[in-house]
């Protein structure tokens, strides 16, 4: 599965992931507190500027962003109808700004860096006794590892439907997919335990 990460060497690429995420959180808070369409428009322009630094070009960017931009337009239109033009403009610019800032961070941070941040952030969770930070990394790895097999199984089940002249329906697709996939859990878990991966030494 290809990530949304974009290769490059801008200053954003070089910033630590944790810093970027903290920055995003701070900026989002700020944007939600602002109500002036003018100020929010400035933020939106800043967002466009940052995203442009990725060097993707108009066509590529449009491909990536169009579905979400459509949603933003729809919501703003709703606000226009129900509330005032000023409110609609504020909503529109705020969402554009937030969305572009977030998309830029996603594009300039590698999957590995993200996982490292998630693992560090999960350390407080260890106190609940439910899960350890390294378990999170293992769990994420497991999902990415087995995703192609699950997708392949889904295709095979769909093909089996077609071969028998049945129309694929959510129920008849989901049940075999679930049972066939989860059946492997015992052996996978046994293999992990046999290798002593989760033992605290």
């Amino acid at each position, binding site marked *: 599965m290809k990530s949304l990460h974009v290769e490059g060497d801008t200053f954003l690429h070089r910033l630590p992931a944790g810093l970027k995420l903290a920055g995003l959180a701070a900026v989002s808070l700020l944007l939600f507190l602002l109500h002036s369409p003018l100020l929010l428009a400035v933020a939106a322009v800043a967002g466009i500027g940052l995203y442009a630094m990725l060097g993707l070009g108009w066509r590529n960017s449009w491909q990536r962003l169009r579905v979400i931009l459509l949603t933003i337009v729809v*919501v703003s239109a709703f606000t226009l109808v129900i509330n005032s033009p000023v409110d609609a403009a504020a909503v529109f610019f705020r969402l554009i700004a937030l969305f572009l800032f977030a998309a830029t961070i996603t*594009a300039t941070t590698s999957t590995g860096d993200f996982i490292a941040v998630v693992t560090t952030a999960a350390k407080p969770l260890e106190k609940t006794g439910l899960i350890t930070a390294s378990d999170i990394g293992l769990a994420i790895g497991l999902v990415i590892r087995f995703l192609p097999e*699950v997708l392949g199984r*889904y295709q095979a089940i769909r093909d089996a439907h077609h071969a028998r002249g049945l129309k694929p329906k959510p129920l008849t697709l989901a049940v075999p997919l679930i049972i066939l996939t989860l059946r492997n859990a015992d052996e996978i878990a046994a293999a992990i335990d046999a290798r002593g991966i989760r033992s605290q030494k």
Partner: protein
Amino acid sequence: MSTRDLVLAALFAAIIVALGLVPPIMLGFIPVPITAQSLGVMLAGVILGAKRGGLAVLLVLVLVAIGLPVLSGGRGGLATFFLPTAGYLVGWFFAAVVTGYCSEHFVDRSQNGIVQIAGFFLAALLGGVVVDHLMGIAYLAFGTGTGLATAFLGDLAFVPGDVLKAMIAALAGRAVMVGYPLLPQRA
């Protein structure tokens, strides 16, 4: 958490991602296309219970956050958490936990099929429809400044589709319980 629980949650997260690939279907009387991914969220609760179902959905949300296009339509990345629909997305986690908790307490292997399906249906409704939609509406209303009334009206269009999904989840829950029971028995 046992290794088996961790693996079950991770495998189910992969299933939820795979369900994002099922093309949305249009049913005549429902104005919006029905996607299968939120069905996956209800299934996680119904089949794995609160703890593992919640972890499965949490893993999907983490994958979205780290930039993998795992949401239906190939969407992903941090930006999706700022969209107007972000409340529904984050709500998935709470939906799975509530559906899981209710499933564990309402449904029992000793009950007959109809009772089990009814129990799962109620659990899926409470989690996947009530809790998820409430959170979706909350963010839509306050987060984007559209106001509660609009948000509530906008949400109504999605309720019939999700009620249908709750029914599918209930039937699937019963089928899996017969074939490969995994739900912790707590009733």
